[in-house]
């Protein structure tokens, strides 16, 4: 989001601690791996404390507690207190489900800096349908509690075909709840959302409308409430500078201890991701082959290799390159210089036709049963 730390490089500035894959919600665009149900072995408190200390010693400043639903870890207060003592800026990324006001207060006391609450939609019915849980009223109550306890609050709404037409209502809801930042996060198509691409990808007409509404409110709200809205990259001609480059500033530690350059990287073939149970963060960041694999420019093929934009976008996203071409070191097909770009445009058009004809496949919800069936 705003102020991404692009001016500092070479250190794992951002540590994303995915504390658990357990989650009371079943969002069909979840970024967790499809086979999460088979990855049950969670790191214990001592492991996490060591990860926090070692990453901080390497220069990590921003810490995100995420999941799954991180509130399901009953050591969250212990981890937060240690993070604060170490000097992290600590962000809790939560659905709000499982929270109560007493815990909001306890986490504040432990030194938590910021809470981000996700909403699935701006109305109860759609919110509860997408999350697979009757959570809307509780989320609203928790957003109010977060503000009452004087935290900065980010509200995050993942945007896709099912809720994009309500974007104005969504923004109004975030204004009413007094968010400091609003992330209207276009779905990125990995894992569950890639599986549900047909039902989630918005149409071009929807995007035009949403962009106009977002721009209007950005101008109206200015600095009082910053609104971030980026169109899905499937509709772009240049790829995103994913993770600011592989192994450049982001370090994700998954619930089972796997260390990843990005939370979607788990399934790239031919890479053995190190585990924090076996290796130090120093080794993982500075010496492990997996983190070095796509650093810099040497690994690139044409058209990236000789492209002047390679220093800006790093060839795009490795996970997306793999998902769309079968080759993780290919140019991200979002780029119109990629030989596979035309196929992506065609896929987008096919999905648009299916949406218009009403022949879209039903959504597959992210839950243990579906994960077992898919894993």
């Amino acid at each position, binding site marked *: *989001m*705003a*102020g*991404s*730390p692009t*001016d*500092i490089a070479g*250190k794992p*500035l951002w540590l994303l601690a995915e504390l658990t894959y357990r989650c009371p919600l079943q969002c069909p665009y979840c970024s967790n791996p499809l086979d999460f149900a088979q990855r049950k072995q969670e790191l214990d408190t001592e492991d996490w404390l060591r990860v926090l200390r070692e990453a901080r010693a*390497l*220069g990590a*400043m*921003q810490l*995100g507690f995420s999941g799954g639903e991180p509130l399901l870890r009953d050591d969250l207060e212990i981890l937060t207190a240690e993070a604060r003592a170490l*000097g992290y*800026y600590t*962000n809790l990324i939560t659905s709000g489900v499982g929270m109560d006001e007493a815990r909001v207060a306890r986490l504040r006391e432990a030194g938590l*800096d*910021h809470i*981000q609450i996700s909403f699935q939609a701006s109305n109860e019915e759609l919110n509860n349908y997408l999350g697979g849980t009757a959570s809307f009223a509780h989320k609203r109550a928790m957003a109010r509690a977060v503000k009452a306890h*004087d935290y*900065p609050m*980010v509200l995050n709404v993942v945007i896709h075909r099912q809720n994009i037409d309500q974007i104005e209502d969504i923004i109004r809801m975030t204004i009413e709840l007094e968010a*400091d*930042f609003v992330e209207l996060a276009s779905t990125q198509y990995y894992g569950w959302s890639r599986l549900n691409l047909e039902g989630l990808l918005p149409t071009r007409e929807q995007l035009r409308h949403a962009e106009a509404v977002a721009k209007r409110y950005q101008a109206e709200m200015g*600095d009082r409430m910053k609104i971030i809205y980026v169109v899905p990259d499937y509709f772009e001609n240049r790829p995103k500078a994913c993770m600011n480059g592989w192994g450049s500033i982001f370090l994700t530690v998954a619930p089972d201890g796997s260390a990843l350059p990005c939370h979607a990287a788990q399934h790239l073939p031919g890479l053995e991701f190190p585990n924090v149970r076996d290796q130090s963060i120093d080794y993982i960041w500075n010496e492990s082959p997996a983190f070095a694999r796509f650093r810099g420019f040497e690994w690139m093929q044409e058209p990236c290799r000789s492209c002047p934009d390679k220093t800006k976008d790093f060839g795009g996203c490795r996970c997306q390159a793999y998902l769309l071409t079968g080759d993780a070191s290919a140019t991200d097909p979002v780029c119109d210089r990629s030989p596979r770009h035309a196929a992506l445009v065609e896929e987008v058009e096919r999905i648009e036709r299916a949406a218009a004809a009403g022949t879209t496949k039903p959504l597959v919800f992210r839950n243990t049963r579906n994960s077992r069936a898919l894993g």
Partner: protein
Amino acid sequence: MNAAPQDARVPVLKRMYRFQWEAAQDCHVLLYPEGMVKLSASAGEILKRVDGQRSVEAIIAELKALFGGAPLDDDVRRFLEQAEGNGWITY
């Protein structure tokens, strides 16, 4: 040159931001939800004194004393204006 007008306003960092020294970066930083700003040495010296107690005048006087009476009034005022424009501080 005319003396600059006295500025008794007291700047304070907005609650969303945390200001701290980062040994690994060898500089002061401002941290906020999911982001950070790396600060120059002079910006760090100014923000170190933005504590909700000192006035703009007091901050300028202290920095002058620290830097041997250098004429840094305008630089400090300009930085504080920018910091307010960025939403980092308020009065």
